[in-house]
């Protein structure tokens, strides 16, 4: 499949010192305060933040839909303020809360139109448009007017229209908002597939942590108009990864007296939480160092306690995000 042109520069999108204050009924509202970040070519970056954090204002400022008070945005080395037209050739977007498409046009007519006003010829790129329909599972809806589609298909049509412009940089602001689980999953799968095949630079803003964790390499967390975290997803999760383990043992006749075992665990691992059922004992423990787990296993082995299962508590992006935002609000508040 045809790919958008590859670029030379390592840093594809560079945002420096972006600020925007709105005046609402004579009250100043600082929507974004000194936002700076860069995105490398071919990277898929997630934008996370609570409501009103400044995600959409940041994206719209980059796209030139909102005029920032200060700051610079360069895309592939092009200054967006000085050379807006050239910069716009590099960018496309699906924007939150907007319809993004014409409801009285069919899916195909919308794709043709939005690609066309970006200078992409429908005649030359027909195969690519067909490919987008296939990846986004829109072939059957090709000649259906958008007003007659479900919200999932409408959203996928908006994404298809943005991708049909073949721009190297794409912004997707809340692409899965209002979608059911299946549609959201399909869209995520399509984004992963498109990104791996075309190596486009994609910025996804979402409330849905699963979307970000599923499709992005890196996450930028915005809170109160500021960037509070800019990390790779793996790096961020490792920061919050704990040594929380849950060990289940069964109480059988081969085991020494359970009471003496529990006493031994309590003295060796005072932080452990123990719960008992008639057949099992569950030990939840946050080990202080990576070697403590061996000590506990050795204690269990000596007592003859049969281990049923050992599980490590998994940290997901949602927990990391909540932790960061709470910490940030605590600091600010």
């Amino acid at each position, binding site marked *: 499949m045809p790919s958008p042109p590859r670029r030379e520069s390592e840093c594809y999108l560079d945002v420096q010192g972006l600020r925007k204050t709105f005046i609402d009924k004579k009250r100043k509202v600082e929507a974004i305060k000194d936002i700076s970040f860069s995105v490398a070519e071919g990277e898929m970056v997630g934008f996370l933040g609570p409501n009103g954090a400044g995600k959409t204002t940041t994206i719209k400022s980059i796209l030139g839909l909102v005029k920032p008070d200060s700051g610079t945005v360069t895309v592939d080395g092009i200054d967006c303020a000085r050379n807006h037209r050239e910069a*716009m050739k590099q960018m496309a*977007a699906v*924007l939150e809360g*907007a319809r993004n498409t*014409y409801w009285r046009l069919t899916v195909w007519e919308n794709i043709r139109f939005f690609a066309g006003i*970006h*200078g992409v010829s429908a005649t030359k790129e027909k195969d690519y448009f067909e490919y987008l329909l296939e990846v986004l599972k829109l072939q059957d809806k090709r000649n259906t007017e958008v007003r007659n589609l479900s919200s999932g298909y409408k959203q996928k049509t908006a994404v298809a229209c943005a991708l049909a412009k073949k721009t190297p940089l794409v912004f997707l602001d809340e692409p899965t908002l209002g979608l059911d689980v299946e549609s959201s999953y399909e869209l995520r799968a399509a984004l992963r597939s498109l990104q791996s095949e075309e190596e486009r630079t994609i910025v996804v803003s979402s409330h849905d942590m699963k979307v970000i964790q599923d499709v992005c390499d890196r996450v930028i967390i915005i809170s109160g108009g500021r960037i509070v975290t800019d990390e790779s997803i793996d790096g961020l999760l490792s920061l919050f990864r704990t040594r929380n383990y849950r060990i289940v043992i069964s109480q059988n006749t081969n085991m020494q007296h359970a009471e003496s075992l529990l006493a031994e665990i309590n003295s060796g691992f005072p932080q452990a939480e123990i719960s008992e059922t008639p057949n099992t004992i569950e030990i939840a423990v946050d080990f202080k160092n990576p070697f403590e787990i061996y000590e506990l296993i050795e204690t269990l082995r000596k007592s003859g306690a049969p281990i049923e299962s050992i599980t490590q508590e998994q940290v997901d992006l949602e927990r990391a995000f909540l932790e960061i935002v709470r910490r940030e609000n605590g600091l600010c508040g």
Partner: protein
Amino acid sequence: MWLIALKASWRQTFTLAMRYLFNFFSAVITMYIVFLLMFYGVRAVGAGALDLGGTLEGLFTGYIIWMIVLVGYQDLAYNVASEAQTGTLEQLYLSPVGYKWLAFFSQSLNSLLNLAMISVITAIMMFTTGQKLNLDMLSILPVFIAVYIQACGLGFALAGLALIFKRIQSFFQIVTFGVIGLFMIPWASFPWAKYLPFTMGQHLLQEIMMKGMKITQAPAGHLTVFAAVTVVYLGAGLGLFALAENKAKAMGLLGQY
């Protein structure tokens, strides 16, 4: 890029016009009915009641100009309001071609559709009322086009207001009646009126359609003023639109409705 964008814009404008065909025909019927009411009303009270050339032919030409002005500015201004309300306006602003050019592309096709519509209405009007007018298209078309461009100037200015205030349909109604007021200003008493939009166009059209004048026979001074007024009002409209666009971007209003 420009040619592809122009083609895409024309295709979209035409497809949407076909999807809203009922709206097109209802506009034709409404304009025709309004004309009939005015025509028979004026005939009943006497043509001198309106200063539209003092005759029923004057009413004809005045009405034709009014239709051109109406469709000229309403398409532009209503489109901005409607695109903002449906949420597609921001997507148009993402085009490297720029919204102003996309509006112009769409308007250029709309102008053909509208002129076709006005020609049909005029033909029906002439047929049903039995009025005869000089239809020298070589002389009429340049006047039509220039008046349409003046109307686009007004349209861009109103579109700018729509960018900021969104729902200004009530204001459009006021402007519509204001335009009728422009046509009623008697030239003899107010010579400065020729510098207002549409008035010189109406005068030239009356001379062509009622008195059989050719555009080349019009006084050079009149043609110069007409051309200057066309350029100035289009420029002013575009300027106001650019100011409103900046304001809307500064206030983050483009995506709001």
